């Protein structure tokens, strides 16, 4: 039974990382929003039926306690958060670099005069 949860968690980790690594744009945003709705439903159900996760954990997944199951889910969620944040940060950095480069180049002396008279020598 323990094997099942291990395989499941590993599969989820790999899938989430692979998915988030490539996904950008409208689809990724939609997936993230659906994820949020699912998370909200998950939270409400957990609050209404506190024993539910322990039962699911023990009966179907071979995990000792519901708390452990939630911990595993949290680890996966944190990992995906880290990866998305890294990618978003890189994208931001790319844009920021382009902006700074444009400013630098527009403030540079015009290169088109080949005489080089503007430059001291």
């Amino acid at each position: 039974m323990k094997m099942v949860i291990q395989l499941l968690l590993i599969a989820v980790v790999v899938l989430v990382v692979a998915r988030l690594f490539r996904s950008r744009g409208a689809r990724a945003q939609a997936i993230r929003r659906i994820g949020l709705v699912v998370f909200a439903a998950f939270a409400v159900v957990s609050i209404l039926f506190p024993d539910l996760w322990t039962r699911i954990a023990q009966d179907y997944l071979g995990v000792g306690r519901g708390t452990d199951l939630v911990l595993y889910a949290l680890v996966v969620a944190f990992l995906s958060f880290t990866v998305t944040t890294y990618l978003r940060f890189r994208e931001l950095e790319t844009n920021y670099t382009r902006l700074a480069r444009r400013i630098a180049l527009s403030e540079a002396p015009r290169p088109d005069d080949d005489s080089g008279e503007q430059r001291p020598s």
Partner: protein
Amino acid sequence: MNTSPVTTDDVWLVVPLFNEATVIGDVVRDARRTFPNVVVVDDGSTDGGADAALAAGAVVVRHPVNLGQGAALQTGLEYARSVPSMRWVVTFDADGQHQVSDVLEMLEKARAEDLQVVFGSRFLDDRTTPSLMKKVILRLAVGYTNLTTGTKLTDAHNGLRVLRRDVVERVDITQNRMAHASELVAQIGEMKVRYGESPVHILYTDYSKSKGQSLWNSVNILVELILR
């Protein structure tokens, strides 16, 4: 082939600069005796190095904030692209490690053998004497780069390179920090252009040693390359 004197009017030296005020003036002055066109990309220096470069006769392009050496190189390439008469770009370090005479040889080789890119290599002769540790790291780095980019080089992490205009127009460095050297090699590998290597002498002065890449930096380079 017109060999003597070799024309250098169509050559632009691209020099990324970050806090090298003590040496940049001499480096630019020395280079400009042979190469009149030098563009120094000041990557947000706080030590007045940009003014020293300007006084020495370089065109200075200033990043408003520090972005990294890779970003500075790309800015320099884009500046050089905007000069209609540019035919060659030479990437050149600001810290005085590179020799102008090596650049002349590289350009001569590029022109004589019709190469689009010439990489400088420390390991084609025994003029350069890096420490054992540095040697091991550089060998590992070049092994990794050759493996992942399909190029055959002896020294992939050398800042001295000659790029022909058609290559300069296609290069797009996005790795702002240290992984840009491997990125550049990878892009050139993908372009299927004619490239070669030329022996260069890197001067490891006390000054450059104190600022050089450490072992820790190679870990960072690897991570940046894997997570690009």
